[in-house]
């Protein structure tokens, strides 16, 4: 593939990501917003691929599409009167909003132009990223890894406890 093809595919994915993200914000229908998130997450995963982070790209799909988006959709679908709720997408604070947006854009452009190119890391990765991630998780980042696993285990136990059938009161909470 030549550079032009890669650039075209990149801009297609970038457009998908940005447009669907805009749709999430501006849509007046919660369901449409939730489904539009699918394209945002997918586009972001594709952008990760362009950064040679294929493992993170797949993890993005697994965690955000498979986990969070499905949970979100379930939540939205099981809410009563979801279709009749009027979403407020009016612009309320025009002046502070524009100020904040301008500041953000100026800050990002400033960083972009002063940094010049995207900073390459001190260590260039060669070969399989998966092996490096595994080795680093099991050696240098052992403590954070274990702490995250304990937090997740506690969350899982808590969820199971909350969802449990209460025998004493004969009802489900």
């Amino acid at each position: 593939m030549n550079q032009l093809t890669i650039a075209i595919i990149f801009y297609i994915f970038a457009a998908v990501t940005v447009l669907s993200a805009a749709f999430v914000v501006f849509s007046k229908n919660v369901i449409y917003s939730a489904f539009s998130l699918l394209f945002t997450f997918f586009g972001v995963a594709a952008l990760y691929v362009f950064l040679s982070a294929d493992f993170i790209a797949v993890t993005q799909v697994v965690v955000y599409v498979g986990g969070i988006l499905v949970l979100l959709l379930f939540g939205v679908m099981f809410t009563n009167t979801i279709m009749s709720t009027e979403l407020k997408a009016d612009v309320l604070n025009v002046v502070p909003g524009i100020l904040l947006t301008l500041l953000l854009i100026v800050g990002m452009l400033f960083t972009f132009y002063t940094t010049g190119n995207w900073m390459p890391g001190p260590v260039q990765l060669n070969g399989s990223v998966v092996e490096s991630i595994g080795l680093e998780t099991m050696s240098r980042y052992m403590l954070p890894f274990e702490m995250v696993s304990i937090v997740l285990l506690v969350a899982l136990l808590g969820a199971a406890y909350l969802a449990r059938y209460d025998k004493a009161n004969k009802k489900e909470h």
Partner: protein
Amino acid sequence: MSSSPSLNTWSDALSGFSIGWFPLGLVIVAAIPLVFIALYALTYGVYGERKISAFMQDRLGPMEVGFWGILQTLADILKLLQKEDIVPTVADKFLFVIGPGILFVGSFLAFAVLPFGPAFIGADLNVGLFYAVGIVAIEAVGILAVGWGSNNKWALYGAVRSVAQIVSYEIPASIALLCAAMLAGTLSMQQITMMQAGPGGFMHWFLFTNPIAWLPFLIYFISSLAETNRAPFDIPEAESELVAGYFTEYSGMKFAVIFLAEYGSMFMVSAIISIAFLGGWTSPLPNIGGLELNTMTSGPVWGAFWIIMKGFFFIFVQMWLRWTLPRLRVDQLMYLCWKVLTPFSLVSFVLTAIWVINH
């Protein structure tokens, strides 16, 4: 990304081909699995399933159109093409239309990493297996879009059941596949297959080289039935309670697309289980002394033949189970997933780890 010079030669040559800036070769690489799904779904999927189910119930199945009803599928397609494309008035038009598309894309995306023989693979990712497991998530969102878009109680129930089932059974399925990845030491589909290639044929497959591999193999097979909504886990489309589940409202070509997606994911899980435990495109025949059966039946074309045959074998088992086992209840389904398959998959994970370390 290929390690040996002969690996992926066909697909690499194809993907290098482009007209100007337009990567025609890449489009062709992507189109080949698509044509394959369509052809296999029409022949083996529809006609084969009808015949197999008929023979299992001591019937003859379709006999009228052509010799032994062999043109029945063609007649079915003509009928589907002619049908009116109905969109219910109260349905959510947008979701109703794009739902089958998302569903099909979700099942088709995994074909990018399935190796059709040593010379052909869509993309030899070094996270191939992880990608194939994870991309099913898009299918789940597609099912929700179909179910919600139909604006029908049965469709919504079917969709919610189906997604709950897919999300739950992803866990034992992933852990079982992790065992295979641990045995291979890699996540790349081609590398996993290469680890199981050798002159001994089937004797090099993970299922037969390892004393514990049958456990994750069995767990993945059961979970894959649930992930593709096949019997005995077909509660999302239980005819007796939900009419047809999440695609109740669909007709004509949209129904055909949903059907293709289902057949696509059936082949996908069958190919994944073949690659992870049964050597993918490697030949099952061993070299016996001077009779070099394995060498004779290896190569790009034979590889494609073996992987497709292995996939078809597991699809046959899926059909076989469909016509022999009764459907599970929802609570039995969840019990099986969380209290049987998940603990056993964890046990098999630990045992496989011990075996890998000490071997």
